[in-house]
Structures are given as C-alpha cells and as structure tokens.
C-alpha cells in the first residue's frame, strides 16, 4: 500500500514528466515559428550571418515597423528614384482583407452547415441520406482544376476583383466538411432531451438554441476553426480571383516579399509571425470555453 505522500510524489513526477514531453514536442513542432520570430527581430544585416543564430545578437523592431508604416522594400542606394508603390505599404490592407474574408466565410459556413446538419439528423425528407455524400464530390477534384470553372462562375456573377468572390469561394471549400462534422456531432447527441423539451411545449427554435447548440458547441468550434484556416491559408483562389494589390489577402500579399530570386526574410518572417499569433491566441481563448462548457455538463453515457 502506498502512503499518501508517496502517491503524491508519484503524481508530481508524472506531471513533471508530462510537461517535459509537452515542451519538447512543442519546441520541435513550433521550431519554424521560433525561427521566424527570431529572424523577425533581427536587423537586416544579421539575417544571413553564418553560423545562423537562434537568438539575435541585436534585437530590432525594424521589420515590424516596416510592415506597419509601409517602408519601401526595394533596396535602392543613395538618392535614386524610388517607385511610388512598394508592397509593404499594403500590409495592413492585406491583414484587413484576410480578416474580413475569413470572418465572413466562417460565419456563413458554420451557420449554413449547422442548420443543414441539424435538418439532416432530425427531420425526414427525400434525399437526406444522399446529401452528405454528394457534398464530398467537390473535394475529390483537385482545386487546381476546379478553379477554372469556379472563376468563370465568379465572372458571370461579376465578382472578380471583389472580396465576395473569396468569401463564397472559401465557403464552397469549407461548407461540405463543416456539414459532415456537425452531422457527426448531431448524430451523437441523443434526441431524448429535445423530445422531452418539445413535449413540455418549447418551440423547435428554442430547443435548437438552448439545448442542442450548447451540446454541439465543440463541433461548432472545430468547424469554425477549420473554416478559418481554409480562408486564412488560401493562395490559389486569391491569386486568381483578385487583381489589385490592395485587395489581396495576406497570403498572396506577403509573397510579394519573395521578389523572385530574393526573399526579404525580415519582412517575410515578421509577416509569418503576425499571421500566426492572432489565430493561435484566438484558439487559446476559445478552447478554454470548450472545457468550461463541459465541466458542468451532464451528458448521458
């Protein structure tokens, strides 16, 4: 029989062990983020120093300042003429565009897919068993081929060079999977709770809002994250559908720092950091609510 003290100690050791593993795994997986962070804090002259250093010998915020204040990117010595447009000027527009497009497409995907999935699992009508499988079709055709006819649709709708084309394009990618995810979740939510409430006189909408949605919350959050990443990450659609530099989202915009044969690593890395941390932070906050929503939940086995 172990004493209380011994099992406490064992517990501590176990916890410490887990932290070590977590730290190691996180370090490995997030190394590129660390490297980006480190490079973004170096002044331009140190970036290509050999041997490569993980910790900057000289910290500098010049890369971030360039992005925010739109410093001229092209290295032109002396008093040579500088072109009026230089990509970093548009960084904040790119950021705003990405946020608009991500938020818009996520909202639409999540709402539409949740409604559809609930409908498929709670109501009866012809074709409801087909619909999920039909929605898989889009994923089976590589997007490099699909982008052509989809672009033609956007042209017909007059949406080229318009952020709506991206919103709708991203919805078309994320919607089917979100629907599947919510479908899987709704199937796992027992119907008895709803039926009990309905018998008690609650309306369908109230049942949906007060009973079903909270239980499906983790699925909704997963679906939202998926949609956000689809929109945040896309390059192809944005490159094809959008022409003007100020309407581009971050992915395409930031690639302007890859000047063909020369990567402005300082700007690129600072951008990578700025593109990652907000979403990572958002997830950190959101998933806390995930747990809270479930700590007290009484879910049937």
């Amino acid at each position, binding site marked *: 029989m172990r004493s209380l003290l011994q099992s406490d100690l064992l517990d501590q050791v176990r916890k410490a062990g887990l932290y070590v593993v977590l730290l190691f795994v996180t370090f490995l997986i997030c190394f590129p983020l660390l490297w980006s962070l480190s490079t973004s804090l170096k002044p331009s002259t140190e970036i290509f120093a050999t041997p490569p250093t993980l910790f900057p010998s000289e910290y500098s915020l010049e890369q971030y300042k360039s992005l925010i204040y739109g410093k001229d990117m092209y*290295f032109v*010595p002396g008093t040579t003429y500088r072109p009026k447009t230089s990509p970093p000027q548009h960084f904040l527009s790119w950021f705003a565009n990405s946020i608009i497009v991500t938020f818009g497409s996520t909202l639409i995907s999540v709402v539409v897919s949740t409604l559809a999935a609930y409908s498929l699992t709670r109501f009866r009508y012809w074709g409801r068993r087909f619909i999920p499988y039909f929605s898989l079709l889009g994923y089976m055709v590589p997007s490099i081929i699909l982008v052509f006819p989809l672009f033609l649709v956007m042209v017909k709708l007059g949406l080229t060079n318009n*952020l709506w084309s991206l919103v709708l394009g991203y919805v078309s990618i994320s919607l089917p999977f979100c629907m599947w995810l919510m479908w899987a979740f709704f199937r796992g939510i027992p119907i008895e709770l709803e039926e009990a409430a309905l018998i008690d006189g609650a309306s369908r909408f109230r049942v949906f809002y007060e009973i079903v949605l909270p239980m499906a919350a983790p699925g909704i959050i997963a679906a939202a994250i998926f949609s956000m990443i689809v929109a945040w990450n896309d390059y192809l659609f944005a490159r094809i559908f959008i022409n003007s*530099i100020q309407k581009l989202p971050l992915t395409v915009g930031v*690639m302007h720092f890859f000047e063909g044969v020369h990567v402005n690593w300082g700007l690129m890395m600072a951008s990578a950091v700025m593109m990652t941390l907000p979403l990572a932070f958002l997830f950190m906050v959101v998933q806390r609510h995930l747990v809270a929503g479930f700590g007290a939940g009484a879910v049937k086995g």
Partner: protein
Amino acid sequence: MTDDKLHNDLTRRDLLTGTAVTAAGLAAAGSMLTRPSSARAQGKSGVVRVWGEPGPYAGVAVDGMNEWAQKNAPGLKFDIETIGWGSVYVKLMTDLAAGQPANLISVESPLAYQLMAEGLLEPVDDVIDRIGRDRMIEGTKWEYWGKWKGHQYVVPAHHQPHLLMVRMDIINELGLSNPDTWTWDDLLNAAKTIHEKKKMPGIALALGRNLCTAYHFAALLHSAGGRMFDVANKFEVVFDSPATVETLEFIDQLRPYMPKGATEYSFLQVVDSMVTGKAAMVFYWGRVYGRAAEEAPEIFKNIQSFNHARHPRTGNRYNWNDFQGWAIPKQNNPFINEVKEAVAYYQTKREWLIRYVHSLVPNVSPVYKDVASDPRLLEHPFFKTKKDTIMTYYVNSLKYASNTGNELLKGANPLAGIVHGRLILAQTVQKVILDNWTPAEAAKWGAQQLESVRKEHFRLVI
C-alpha cells in the same frame, strides 16, 4: 397531440423581418467589400491593369505611365499587379479563358513569342515608330523582343543578361588567370582548383527541376553551337546533336565542384550561395549586386562579372538574355490606345528610362543607345566601384545575347514557351545528373520530348 403543437408559430412578419435583416446585412457588407471594378468604359476612366514581374522596375514604368495619364487622361489610373513567376502561367491562362486579361503585360521573349503566335497580342509598330526605329543600342534589334510575321508585338522594356560572376579575391589569391580570357576548360580548371585549395564549391549552378536550370543550360548549349529547333527548316528538332552531348558532359564535369545540394537549386538558392560566400562563382543576372550590397558588403566588394567562358571550338560565349518587353493583350481590352500612348510617352522620356534602369542596377539594362550614353546613367552609387561589371551587363554582353525564343538569333521560336512550361531542358539535365543516364541517352530523350511539342503545336509555326 397534433404536429401543430410542436411547431413554432412563424408569422409572416417574422419571416419577412428576418429576411430583410439578413438582406440588409449582406448588402451593407457587400457595399463595404465592393469597389468599382475596372470600367469597360470608352477608355476615358477606370483602372488600367499592368502586369509586372517581381521587382521595383515595373513600378517605375507604371509611375511614368501615370504621369502621362495625369496630363492626358486624368480619369485613368495605371495599376501595377506583381505576379510571381510561379503564378504567371496559371493566372494568365485563367484570365484569358475568362476573357479578362490584363491591359498591358511585361513578358520575356519566349513567352511573348508563344502569345504572338497564338494571335493574342496587339501589334505595336506604331509605338516603335514613335519611339524611334534607330534608337537601339548597336548589336541588338527590335525583333529580338518580339517580331512575328512582319509585325512587332513587343515594346522593349529592358534586356537582362546572365553573366559569369566571380569572387575576384579568391581568383587572385589562387593566382588564376583573368576570367575574361577563359575557355570552358579554364572554367572547369578554376572550379576544380578552388574546390581543392579552398575546400569550397568552385561554382554553383541550378540543377533543379526549374527554369533557372533551363536558362543556364540553354546558354551553354548555344555556345556549343547547338539548338533545339531549326527555324529555317520547318522547326525540325535538331536537339539530338554532338553539341547537346558536349554541353551535358560539361555540366556533368562541373558537378563535383558544385555544392552537393545543387540538384535542388533554383534561382533563389544560386543567389544565396554567392551572397553567403558558399560558392566562388555563379552564372547570374545583376540582382546579386543589389542583394550583396545590402546584406554582405564584404562579398559585394569582391565580386565582378564577365562575359562567359568561350567554347573551345566555336569560340562562342553566349549568355541567356531575357529580352523583357511590354505586350498588349488584344482580348476585351478597352485601353489599347491609351496604353500605347502611355508606353510611348515614358519610353521617349529619358529621365524615366534612366530611373527604370537605376531601380535595379545592374540587373535591368537599357535598350536605347541615347540612354546608354547619357551621363546621368552613371549617377548610381554602384558605378563608383563596379563600372566595368555594369557596362558588361549593359552593353558588352549584347553581342553574345541569345535565348530559346530566338536561338542563336536565327529566328523567332514560339515553341520555346511551351518547352519551358514543360521544363524539358531542366529534365534533360536531371536525367544525366540524377538518373545517371549518359549524355547521349539524355539528348535523345530530350529530342523526343521536343518532337512531341512540335507535333502538338505545329499550327503555331506554319
């Protein structure tokens, strides 16, 4: 209990309100997101879409065009769209397929020839007349940029050669001869000596599956006297030749003195090797100087560029030259006249041409002799220390310029764009380097690929 009890009582007003709110929300969002797209008006107002490759110079040209617009067509704005080389083909195809190409594009000659032959471009003879038919630097002609079936379709923007770039401090330290006098054997010997004595790669070329490899290979092939197609003889494939075999052998001989990772190298990695001091020699365009000046001043001090090593038998020293120019897509383009005016405007204003060239010295070389001899050209800081190198890029390399769009300057070759798209040349090199085929086998394979291109697209060349 009837079903009715279980349903919500949706009233008509609820439904309408809901719909109205949603619609209003969408409309509001839509008006925030919607901005006027390029007007299909009668050329008086709107946005003129101009495509450029990555780099500052296209932006300078567009500034010049906007100066024209301010004076002559105030409703128009020229907007630069920088398309990376990886995306150019995809975006061009999609835009053309949808009938919405840009109004003016900057292209290198192989792609220009392909577009011309497909009938997609507007002739620009009138613009050339305005600019002045006799303005070209000695040794170069308008047609190198894009002449097809009697018409000129491209207005030259600049020319862009790649040269032998060398770390002179290492050359001098090892007592090697002046690179300007080298033959292929001397180059090989230098690479070997550097590798042995300094324990570093003597030379770095691109050997990956990409355009840089193709360009390096093409220059060497042309120096050896080889070509892909015989333009005068119905574009017969003449790639399977001793010259091709010789070129592949030469690259194979240089291989041990290149960085071991060269089989993945593309444009970026070749420049990296020079700027980080990992290789002593490269074949490259002038961009390296700008990058070295910014990131590695010590290296910048010591590099110099020369015309390529001569082929021992033919004596040729061809370089790949991009022959970059402006082309006007015909399709659905309401601004053709305005674009022609604007291009003619900035091309006849020497200040703009000088600014264009100064934006990336010495990568972007002037095309007109009055610009090349204008004293203001020398006002760029690099001229203090790199004058010889710069003038080699600008002028002295022109007589050795060649590319696959116009092989050995024997005639336009619209199939080159397709060959590059399919990376046939790069794959041929990789067959020798990676798959260990003999150069003869690889040449045969390459010739087969070229033959299939010729067959499929023959209507372009008849």
